């Protein structure tokens, strides 16, 4: 089993922001959710993967090959959807498909028609008259019609209603029925990722906080809450402590060893959600 995407010690510096030592590994056959607050570096990372901006140092392998050296054959096998898909607004969906198809050697018109039908989009519709959700689905249909093996989606669900988001999850699950495929998918709507992602990568201020199997995190990490007056006793063993006037909360990585070291009878121990993790691990302490 090989890796479909590998990012190794990737660095990129701008005037006021830097991506530092980004490492990501996605094996074939799986979905990775890429989460982080706005401005954390998700889109910059994706642009580097897509070689839309130049990296300062590091390496990116897609399908086991360097993403710059083999850019054309690699992109031929990538379906890429941007948060705000760019189309020619005054032209039809059908025209857009014909146009996009010219860039891919494996473009499959029949597949495109099938997908449009499935998403209830007509070829004769003018792009600018499409709703935001339909535009995203059109972009997905385009991305899926040239037999891609890797889907890279940058915030595909932001601004979409729950019904369309759910449809998208279904499309992604359908896509990885083939074990050779993979999905790399950024979002700040963590509930989507929480359902279907196999791996989670959390980025904050240009650095990777963790890149792990989702089940490992959700099954073993716990959210601990307690009375603020007792925080001294626990604070050394909590990650990302948040303090309010009355209470504190924090994340515990290994609840069993935490329990063996502390009296937990006055604490609330909850399942964590990715939202809890995002909130606790990406914000500064108050």
């Amino acid at each position, binding site marked *: 089993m090989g890796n479909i995407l590998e990012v190794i010690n990737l660095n990129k510096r701008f005037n006021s922001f830097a991506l530092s030592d980004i490492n990501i590994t996605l094996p074939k056959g799986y979905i990775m959710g890429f989460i982080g607050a706005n401005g954390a570096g998700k889109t910059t990372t994706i642009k580097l993967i897509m070689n839309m901006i130049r990296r300062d140092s590091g390496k990116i392998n897609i399908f086991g090959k360097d993403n710059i050296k083999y850019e054309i054959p690699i992109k031929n096998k990538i379906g890429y959807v941007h948060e705000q898909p760019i189309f020619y607004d005054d032209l039809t969906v059908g025209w857009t498909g014909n146009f996009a198809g010219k860039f891919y050697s494996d473009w499959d018109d029949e597949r495109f028609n099938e997908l449009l039908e499935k998403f209830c989009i007509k070829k004769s519709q003018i792009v600018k008259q499409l709703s935001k959700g339909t535009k995203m689905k059109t972009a997905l249909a385009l991305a899926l019609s040239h037999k891609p093996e890797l889907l890279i989606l940058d915030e595909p669900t932001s601004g979409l209603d729950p019904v369309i988001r759910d449809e998208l999850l279904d499309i992604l699950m*359908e896509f990885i029925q083939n074990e050779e495929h993979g999905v790399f998918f950024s979002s700040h709507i963590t509930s989507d990722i929480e359902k279907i992602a196999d791996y989670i990568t959390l980025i904050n201020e240009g650095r990777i906080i963790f890149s792990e199997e989702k089940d490992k995190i959700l099954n073993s990490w716990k959210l601990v809450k307690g009375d603020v007056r007792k925080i001294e006793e626990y604070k050394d063993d909590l990650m990302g402590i948040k303090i309010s006037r009355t209470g504190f909360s924090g994340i515990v990585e290994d609840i069993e060893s935490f329990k063996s070291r502390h009296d937990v009878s006055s604490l609330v121990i909850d399942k964590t959600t990715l939202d809890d993790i995002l909130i606790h691990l990406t914000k500064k302490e108050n």
Partner: protein
Amino acid sequence: MFIPISNNDPRPLYEQIFEGIKNKILTGELAPGDALPSIRQLAQDLKTSVITTKRAYFELEQQKLIVTRPGKGSFVADYDADKIASMQRAEIEQQMRKTITEAKKNGVLKKELEEMFRKILEEEY
């Protein structure tokens, strides 16, 4: 194949899937030789991750309730009836243990508990 999974269940998702399928095998809803959906298909149906369903199948294999044949898929194993029966009993015992622990916690006396048990047994059995 319907498998009840719930967000409110404190058990991890893979465990809920594992228990759900195990239950179907123990109750006979799934018979030896029956094909199970592929790991990826089940993940899509349940809208869970592939790794989650993979783990559930792995646990089922460990308990020898299913077998996976490369390239063919997963099937309910040819288990022996005695083994299933003893597993069912173990499950019931565990539930009883839970009830007794709960009763203890609430200060119910052993004698009261015995009476309760007898009364319910008369009503239900």
